């Protein structure tokens, strides 16, 4: 989903196995050395030196160990003629709530995207940042970007044999725009839609109220087309959400609640049929169990490996031999945000000081195990939306102290805590109890804050209570992550000052210059020009420290070496190209 995106309360680093560390060589005691005869000593030392150089990297000294590609999680493509048939077993860490992306509550991000992906199709697909025809054979836009005429591909049928027509596109949009339906994620992106015309069975004409690049992009590239005959009745309890009927290369077979989900190849697919005969998603929540099953070879594709297990797998030769690892930095940014509605955090000097006090390197090493690339950008860093010139703030307590002093904060009553006009400088971090990442990270940050004279503490609540507090703006500081499955996105909802009251600008950021740019971006259909505006937003937002940007969440997966054609991408893997070698 582009633009809007998903929000998770930062609960994505589960606890797991201990980290593997090389053993330090033990030096002989003085008593031992005294007993060694002089002529033996040089030899002994030599052996010791040789041994210690070995013990630093026991894995590499004994045998070749995993390759550099394996370590880095780069997928090595193996060619060959695709083989038909076979089943792909995929581990999922969560069970999707429902199999549709329209419903907000079912649309909880990655799990839904992964499981719905092979079933439903969009009008166009995103390839290399461009829209290419899929269910739509072609489309044309008026010069003022106010109407869009779409011609559907003919001969496409749903998995139940019903033909795809313009009525299905209209019914899907009607479901999105029915006010009582919980479909706000799509409704938000498509809010500029004025009306839909269906002059004949293969043609859909969309009229927009005003030009908005993301609406066109979402309608063509993100909105799945559901069958009109399946959308009849109460939207919350549609059978379609439990047993989806789409047009994609795979069709739904069965869903065993709590354990697995099975798809089979759609032999009547309108395009190139898939190679795999079956795809089985197995829900294994517990990390320890998932790793045991992975080592046992039960998964062809192991998803969501915890950072600790990822590191532990580096000392397991079975896993080097049997699997390829996938490391892919998603379009996600994890952030800490300060409530800028409060005078303390409205002061940019204070926000900068808090940024300078964040021990990023320590966190990257100790919490993220070196697996979350740092970002400074609210857009996809691997695109042209980000300015590579923006440098992340260093960890620099003296500079932070100076900024705080400039802002008038000093320890006047000598109690170790900075104060100004009789008010102490204090920050309460609201943390979700289900976020082990925050449980590890915040104490490290609190340490440096306390040393700098800031009275910092953690307030832990459960996820539901957390979101209530965030929406009510009842917090000093929060941690969340924004993610989308597309490089094309619109950050209006999280950065524009108009979204601070009720929208997703939870931190209450406000900068008129950024507001102007964000409004201009919405009406800019030219990618190059839009990227130039986005780079300006990037610079301003980072300079304002609107958010304390942390890392980008990576995809940490592994698949069996006999699985071919798996390519990581922002929209997960395209299973229709996957096949299993002998």
């Amino acid at each position, binding site marked *: 989903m582009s633009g*809007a*995106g*998903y*929000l*998770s309360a930062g609960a994505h680093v589960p606890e797991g196995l201990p980290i593997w560390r090389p053993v330090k060589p033990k030096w002989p005691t003085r008593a031992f050395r005294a007993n060694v005869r002089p002529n033996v000593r040089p030899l002994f030392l030599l052996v010791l030196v040789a041994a210690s150089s070995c013990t630093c990297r026991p894995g590499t000294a004994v045998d070749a160990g995993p390759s550099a590609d394996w370590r880095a999680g780069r997928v090595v493509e193996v060619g060959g003629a695709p083989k038909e048939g076979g089943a792909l077993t995929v581990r999922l860490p969560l069970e999707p*709530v*429902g199999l549709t992306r329209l419903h*907000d*509550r*079912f*649309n*909880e991000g990655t799990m839904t995207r992964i499981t719905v992906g092979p079933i439903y199709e969009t009008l166009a697909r995103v390839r290399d940042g461009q829209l290419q025809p899929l269910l739509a054979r072609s489309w044309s836009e008026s010069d003022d970007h106010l109407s869009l005429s779409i011609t559907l591909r003919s001969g496409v049928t749903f998995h139940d044999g019903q033909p795809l027509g313009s009525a299905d596109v209209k019914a899907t949009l009607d479901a999105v725009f029915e*006010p*009582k339906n*919980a479909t*706000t*994620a799509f*409704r*938000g*992106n498509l*809010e500029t839609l004025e009306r839909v015309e269906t002059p004949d069975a293969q043609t859909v004409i969309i009229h927009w109220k005003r030009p908005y690049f993301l609406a066109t992009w979402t309608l063509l590239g993100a909105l799945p087309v559901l069958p009109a005959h399946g959308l009849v009745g109460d939207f*919350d*309890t549609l059978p379609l*959400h*439990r047993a989806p009927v789409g047009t994609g290369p795979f069709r739904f077979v069965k869903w065993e*609640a*709590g*354990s697995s989900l099975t798809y089979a190849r759609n032999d009547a697919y309108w395009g190139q049929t898939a190679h795999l005969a079956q795809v089985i998603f*197995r*829900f*294994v*929540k*517990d990390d*320890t*169990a998932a790793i*045991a*099953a992975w*080592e*046992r*070879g*039960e998964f062809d594709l192991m998803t969501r490996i915890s950072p600790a297990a990822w590191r532990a797998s580096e000392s397991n030769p*079975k896993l080097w031999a049997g699997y390829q690892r996938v490391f892919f930095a998603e379009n996600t940014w994890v952030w800490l945000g300060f409530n800028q509605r409060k005078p303390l955090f409205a002061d940019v000097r204070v926000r900068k000081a808090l940024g300078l006090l964040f021990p990023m390197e320590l966190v990257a090493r100790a919490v993220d195990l070196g697996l979350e690339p740092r970002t400074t950008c609210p857009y996809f860093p691997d695109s042209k939306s980000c300015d590579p010139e923006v440098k992340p703030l260093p960890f620099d307590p003296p500079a932070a102290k100076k900024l705080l002093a400039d802002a008038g904060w000093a320890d006047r009553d000598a109690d170790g805590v900075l104060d100004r006009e009789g008010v102490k400088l204090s920050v309460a971090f609201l943390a979700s109890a*289900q976020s082990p990442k925050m449980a590890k990270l915040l104490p490290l940050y609190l340490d440096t804050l306390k040393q700098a004279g800031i009275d910092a503490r953690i307030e832990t*609540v*459960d*996820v*539901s*209570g*957390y*979101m*209530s*507090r965030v*929406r009510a703006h009842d917090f000093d500081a929060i941690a969340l992550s924004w993610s989308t499955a597309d490089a094309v996105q619109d950050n209006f*909802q*999280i950065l524009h000052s108009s*979204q601070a009251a*009720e*929208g*997703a600008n939870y931190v209450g950021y406000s900068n008129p210059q950024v507001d102007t740019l964000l409004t201009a971006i919405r009406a800019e259909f030219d990618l190059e020009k839009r990227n130039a505006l986005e780079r300006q937003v990037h610079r301003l937002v980072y300079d304002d420290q609107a958010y304390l940007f942390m890392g980008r969440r990576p995809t940490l997966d592994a698949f069996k070496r006999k699985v071919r054609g798996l390519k990581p991408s922002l929209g997960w893997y395209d299973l229709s190209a996957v096949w299993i070698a002998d």
Partner: protein
Amino acid sequence: MRRYVLRRLLLMIPTFLGITLLTFVIAQLAPGDPFQLDLEVVGPGQAVIDLQRTSKGLDAPLPLQFGRWLSRVVRFDFGRSFIDQRPVTEKLGEAAPRTALVAGLALVLGFGLAVPLGVLLATRARRWWARVLSVLLVAAWSVPTFWIAVILLMLFAGPRYFDWFPVQGLAEGGFVLPVICLTWPTLVVATRQVRSALEDALAQDYVKAARARGIPERRVVWRHALRNSLLPVVTMLGLHLPHLVGGSVVIERIFGIPGMGLLAFDAIGTRDYPTVMGVATVMALVTMLSMLLVDLAYGFIDPRIRLERSA
């Protein structure tokens, strides 16, 4: 006797109301509501949340909500889950048998082994192996179940040591490891209970009298002493039953058994009130029934209790 059972059954009604009312209020008191978790970003968010709350009847005053819930429950309608929109009865129907299988096996195994083991420890208390076993029982008591689960999983499932059992689910013998985990604490506690109760009983005068009359030791222990020492054990069993039926979140999660424990846990976390209430209702019923069964069992074990009641 029949009148007694009837009175007990009627007493269950106010107890049931009390338990469910309390659960209802506590669940609603927790901050947040299910629709806060629709983590969408866009503008009309709050308006839709309000609409959803209205359509699920969450805007009504609490007493009215509870009344509505009760009136549906007496018709065996627990409503639909707020989260995946499936009927709660369907979800309970899936989860309960899994938990019942594992918990039932654990209960039978736990108490089935605890009685002979307890008897052995009580009658051979001075032997060296009995002492070692007693110490081991204390040690075993202090080992957390989740640790046992992880160790068992590592040892007996997966390729590292013995690849005997599947890692996840109940099929293909997958129930063995979770049953061991759940049996463990039951066995340890029940064994200690049987032993101490039997030791007390064996010191009683009537045991001495029985022995003096020349009744064989085996008969003294198993017929005279044990029967009298079973009362506290049966009480424990009654209290243990709902505990097992409630399921163990940890065990169910580690072994991938989507039973009652996980259902309740997830429902509480997502403020899925209909499911929370469904689980609470089942738990309340099982608890009350098992207490009734325990009271009835007293009568069979100890004739004195029977006599007092009929008098």
